[in-house]
C-alpha cells in the first residue's frame, strides 16, 4: 500500500476580501507548461476556488489545470471538497481558456458528510463547455485564483519559464457583474508564500494576475 506524499508548497493567491456579495467568477486563465520534476515541483495546480467555511466545515469547489510527476500530463480538472472530489476534463493546453463558476439561485437537497442538507446549485464551464455541477451552502461566496506548487521536502521548486496568468476576470453579483479590478468598493488581496511572486497590472479594467515561483 503506497503512502501519501508529504509535500511543501509555494505560490501566489489573488482573492477578494468580501465573501458575502459575489455569486461566482468568469475569468481567462493560461496555466503555462505546469513544470514538474522528481527533483523539483512534484505537483502543480493553477486554479480558481470559490466557497467559504461553514459552521459544519469547509465548503468549496474549484476549476483549473494540473500536472504531477506521477501523472505527467496536463489536465483540466474540477474539485469539490464534499461532493465528488477530483474530476478530470481532458488534456490541458498552455493557451488561455475561459473558466466560469456560477452559483445559481436554485436550491436543492444533497448529501454532505452523510447528512441531507440544502445547497445552491453551482455550474462550472471550462473553455465555454459545461463540465460539472454541484452544491454550495452559500450563494454569496469567497473567490480566489491560485498558483500552487508542491514539492517534496528537501527539493527546490521547478522554475516557471512561462508564467500562469489570470486576466479579463469579472465577478457575478445580484445585478449582473463587475470587472475584477482596482477600484473603490472592491478590495483584493495578493498573497505569496514560499518562493512565490506576482504582478497585478490592470488590463481592460481588470487585474492581469501573473504569478511564478523561483
Amino acid at each position: 500500500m503506497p503512502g501519501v506524499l508529504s509535500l511543501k508548497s509555494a505560490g501566489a493567491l489573488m482573492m477578494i476580501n468580501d465573501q458575502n456579495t459575489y455569486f461566482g467568477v468568469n475569468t481567462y486563465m493560461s496555466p503555462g507548461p505546469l513544470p514538474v520534476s522528481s527533483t523539483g515541483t512534484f505537483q502543480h495546480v493553477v486554479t480558481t476556488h470559490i466557497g467559504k467555511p461553514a459552521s459544519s466545515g469547509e465548503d468549496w469547489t474549484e476549476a483549473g489545470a494540473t500536472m504531477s510527476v506521477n501523472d505527467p500530463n496536463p489536465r483540466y480538472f474540477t474539485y469539490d471538497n464534499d461532493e465528488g472530489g477530483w474530476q478530470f476534463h481532458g488534456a490541458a493546453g498552455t493557451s488561455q481558456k475561459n473558466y466560469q463558476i456560477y452559483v445559481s439561485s436554485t436550491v436543492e437537497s444533497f448529501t454532505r458528510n452523510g447528512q441531507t442538507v440544502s445547497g445552491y446549485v453551482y455550474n462550472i464551464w471550462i473553455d465555454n463547455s459545461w463540465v460539472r455541477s454541484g452544491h454550495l451552502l452559500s450563494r454569496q461566496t469567497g473567490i480566489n485564483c491560485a498558483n500552487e506548487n508542491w514539492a517534496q521536502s528537501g527539493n527546490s521548486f521547478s522554475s516557471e519559464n512561462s508564467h500562469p496568468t489570470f486576466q479579463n476576470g469579472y465577478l457575478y453579483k445580484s445585478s449582473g457583474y463587475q470587472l475584477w479590478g482596482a477600484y473603490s468598493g472592491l478590495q483584493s488581496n495578493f498573497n505569496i508564500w514560499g518562493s512565490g511572486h506576482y504582478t497585478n497590472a490592470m488590463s481592460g479594467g481588470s487585474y492581469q494576475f501573473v504569478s511564478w515561483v523561483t
Partner: protein
Amino acid sequence: MKSNFSFFIILAVIISVMVLSSGCTENTSISSHSQSVTNASGAALVIALDNDTVQSLLAGGYSVQSIEPSTVGINQMSFNVTCVMFDTPQDSVGVNVDVKNNSIVNIWTLPKRVPMPGLYDV
C-alpha cells in the same frame, strides 16, 4: 475557551524564547539584520496566535509551517509583512502580520484536497 486562549499565548511565548535562544547559541556572529528577522518571527507568531479568527481556524489542531518576511498586495499597493504559515487538517492558513504596528494585515486560507489519483509514492 479562556484557558485555551491563555495556553496559546503561553505556548507562543515559549516557542519565541526557544527560537531566539537557539539563534543566539548556535551562531554567536549572527548579524543584527538576522536577529531582527528572528525577533520579528517570534513577535509575528504571538500576534497571529492572539487573533480570534486565527484561533478559530486553528481550533482543530495545527503546526507552524514557516515564518518568513513577505509582501502582501492590497489592490495595487504592496506592504512588507511577516507571513506566518500554519498547517491544519483542512487548510493551509496564511497570516500576514505587521509586527511594527502589532497588527494583522490579512488572513487567507488555501483549502486542502485529498491527494489526486497518482499522487502517491510508487
